[in-house]
């Protein structure tokens, strides 16, 4: 080792981003999640699910959060943990909008015909279907929604027929 070389610093498993409440910023949040998640070793499939759920959670905040959302930042926090042969990642979305727990929303009934189908309302379906777990709390005027995804490298390899 030369006198100028420094040991590589371990990557921080927690990273945060603050965004404004608009669609450009939602896109910026996805870019941030993609880069931060890849750098922390989240595989592509759970990272896609996390991005989809975060995007839908932010869309809900923007559409239904009320006037407080526009005048306050939305805070995002990514946590990544290794566990056994896999890992878990979570994104927490914190906003000052109207209190809303997406876990309490009844799943949308599947329409039988195209004429019966109502555009919209699929965001909560995605949260329920693509997150491995959802946590919600409301404290000091803020919603905190945490979206969890998990993965298992050995299971993924087995499913691809590589094990």
């Amino acid at each position, binding site marked *: 080792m030369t006198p100028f070389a420094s040991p590589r610093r371990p990557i921080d498993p927690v990273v945060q981003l603050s965004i404004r409440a608009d*669609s*450009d910023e*939602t*896109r910026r949040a*996805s870019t941030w999640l993609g880069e931060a998640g890849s750098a922390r070793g989240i595989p592509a499939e759970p990272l*896609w699910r996390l*991005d*989809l759920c975060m*995007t*839908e959670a932010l*869309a809900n905040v*923007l559409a239904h959060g009320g006037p407080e959302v526009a005048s306050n930042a939305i805070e995002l926090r990514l946590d990544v943990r290794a566990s056994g042969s896999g890992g878990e990642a979570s994104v927490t979305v914190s906003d000052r909008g109207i209190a809303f727990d997406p876990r309490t929303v009844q799943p949308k009934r*599947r*329409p039988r*015909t*195209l*004429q019966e*189908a109502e*555009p*919209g*309302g*699929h*965001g909560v*379906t*995605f949260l329920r*279907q*693509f997150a491995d777990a959802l946590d919600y709390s409301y404290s000091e005027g803020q919603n905190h929604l945490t979206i969890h995804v998990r993965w298992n490298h050995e299971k993924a390899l087995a499913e691809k027929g590589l094990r």
Partner: protein
Amino acid sequence: MAITYEDVSDSFRRIVLSGRLDSKGTDEIAVKFAALSTAAKRRVLVDLTGISFLASIGIRAVLSNAKALQNNGGRMVLFVGGNSAVAKTLEATGIDTLVPMFANAAEAEKAALG
């Protein structure tokens, strides 16, 4: 987001969407997508193979246009090829059963024209 189209015949149009169909992406193509899919062409195949991300707002646009087309006596089908993320997203909402979705291009075309 990019949107292109090809009129295969007088009554059959292929629309190709590519990029990220999130809120920003849907805003970028919404007007053109609606105009192209509900115009005089009665059969429309929407090629989603180049979609890198499909959010619920993008599905909303597909559904609205498919409904409008049906109300005008037309039909829309979706072609996803090997894009499993887009297929999973559509399947999660059940939209794939209302606007037929195909992985095979020839089958998609046959269904659109059938």
